[in-house]
């Protein structure tokens, strides 16, 4: 290589250098960079699959993915300009909208599937025999965050099954510690997610009492990717490219969830051991956003006092994502 370079005259070398530089510049200009923050959970797997399969590249966007530990940093980080796109949930986005943070939903994320094996659940101690919201009156339920999506559905489930949510105490406990809190009788129920739900029920002393998502709003949209309205207006085409590529990633993961490459990717993204990944139930990710489901969740939020009134959904969801 060195001798070839030496063999060229200085002028030719300069021209070759300029040509390579121009090619790189043109190539780089064609690829729009998007800074995306995600939760290192199963929900992020389609995005990584789209990266692995080159779907983003085909669309002309480069995703710079940064993990985050949740809402405390994600929305402020988005508003402050640290990220262009973040993974969020319907409840947090609607709340932010009410507080004046203009956000735009640019891709679907997760959705409850009533026909599949539940991946979330309200768990109780088997010995207590708690079955309904009425049974929970005067007792406590652990949720990951107050005023979050889990809290909303736990509360709505209590109401739907004959209980008074104001008589139930909702305690904030992080998902990994919920099983211990239930066993040690610090709470009487936990609303948890996969894989913590499967792990907690392994011993047999803890049982799945209910599936609040399915019982309250069976086909609820739960997670999604959002950006700021400002970014959306200035980079509409790039966000739509992101949405299209992500959709291909979703289709691939849905069709190949148990394939070794998907299982390996899940393990890499979530850091779960391959043994745990093998036990995870098949998840079906949504390909598009369903505004009617947002409207139903919004009604639950108004009922719970989380929202003062409805939010204009047509200006919150990119119409291209509803088809």
């Amino acid at each position, binding site marked *: 290589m060195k001798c070839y370079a030496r063999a060229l005259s200085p002028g030719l070398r300069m021209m070759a250098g300029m040509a390579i530089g121009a090619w790189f510049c043109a190539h780089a200009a064609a690829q729009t960079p998007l800074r995306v923050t995600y939760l290192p959970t199963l929900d992020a797997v389609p995005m990584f699959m789209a990266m692995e399969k080159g779907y983003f590249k085909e669309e002309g966007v480069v995703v710079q993915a940064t993990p*985050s530990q949740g809402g405390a940093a994600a929305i402020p980080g988005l508003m402050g300009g640290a990220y262009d796109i973040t993974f969020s949930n319907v409840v947090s986005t609607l709340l932010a909208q009410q507080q004046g943070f203009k956000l735009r939903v640019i891709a679907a994320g997760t959705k409850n599937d009533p026909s599949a094996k539940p991946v979330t659940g309200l768990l109780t101690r088997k010995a207590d025999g708690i079955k309904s919201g009425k049974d929970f009156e005067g007792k406590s339920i652990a949720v990951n965050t107050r005023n979050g999506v889990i809290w909303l559905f736990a509360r709505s489930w209590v109401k739907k099954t004959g209980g008074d949510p104001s008589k139930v105490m909702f305690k904030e406990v992080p998902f990994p510690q919920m099983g211990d809190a239930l066993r040690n009788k610090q709470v009487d129920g936990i609303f948890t997610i996969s*894989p913590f739900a499967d792990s907690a029920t392994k011993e047999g002393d803890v049982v799945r009492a209910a599936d609040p998502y399915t019982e309250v709003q069976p086909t609820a949209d739960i997670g999604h990717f959002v950006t700021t309205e400002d970014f959306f207006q200035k980079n509409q085409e790039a966000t739509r490219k992101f949405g299209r590529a992500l959709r291909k990633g979703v289709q691939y993961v849905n069709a190949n969830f148990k394939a070794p490459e998907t299982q390996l990717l899940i393990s890499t993204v979530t850091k779960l051991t391959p043994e745990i990944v093998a036990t995870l139930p098949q998840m079906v990710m949504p390909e598009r956003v369903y505004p009617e489901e947002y409207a139903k969740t919004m009604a639950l939020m108004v009922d719970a006092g989380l929202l003062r009134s409805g939010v204009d959904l047509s200006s919150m969801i990119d119409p291209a994502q509803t088809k």
Partner: protein
Amino acid sequence: MSAASTMSRPDSTTAPAAQRTKRARSDWTRTRATGFMLIASLLVLWEISARWGWIVSENWPPVTQIAKALIEALSSGELSIALLATLYRVMLGFAIGSVVAVALGILLGRNRLADRLIRPPIEVLRTMPGPAILPPLILLLGVEEALKVTVVSLASFFPVFVNAYAAVRGTDSTLLNTARTFRLGRSVTLRRMLLPAALPSIMAGMRISISIALTVAVIAEMVSGASGVGYFLMSMQYAMRADVMYAAVALLAVVGYALNRIFVAVEGRVLFWRSR
């Protein structure tokens, strides 16, 4: 050893065996080994409770499993890289916080106008817990280095400032009068009189700050960003790998202890005139 002290202590060659044993035991209890013995006993109890099923939880792995996970995480480089990122933030934030604190401590301690102007906002800020102001700070500083170094600097600042300010204010007036009598300039008075007089207090404040800096850096990493031991232990917790998570916690404890010991050694060197 002086002749007097030699005479006041019984000769070890002639002392009765029982007395020697008693003294040996009392010497042993004075060493740091006693503290380590307590830790070791607790770790053994932890191991037994996990192995014999006294505590049934995914979050309670045996200590030996944690030790294995620590070795693996360090040798794979995963935890070592995270630790380096955290230490970088701790050191940078601590250095910035301490330098600003010493400068402001001296300024406010010596200048009444600056004291009246700047101290009230400092006192108000001092009561704010660092982790609580993280989300609003994210809006301004993003989620990476700028945020974390700022939070660590703020947390390191207050103990050093309080000590530096109090030490400067409490400097012996005879010292300052002597400086004036000898017509020493401000700079010489600062370097030769004020700083040496305030240094023991400043160093004590810095020793408190270094531990706080480590804690705050880890908390900031747990809340935002994607690097450092804080992020590492949160992701391991959510990946249900409690052994690796505890390995990170154990490493933090060791690093915290090591930082403190290093600081004590540096303090001994810097404050060489103090009898130890």
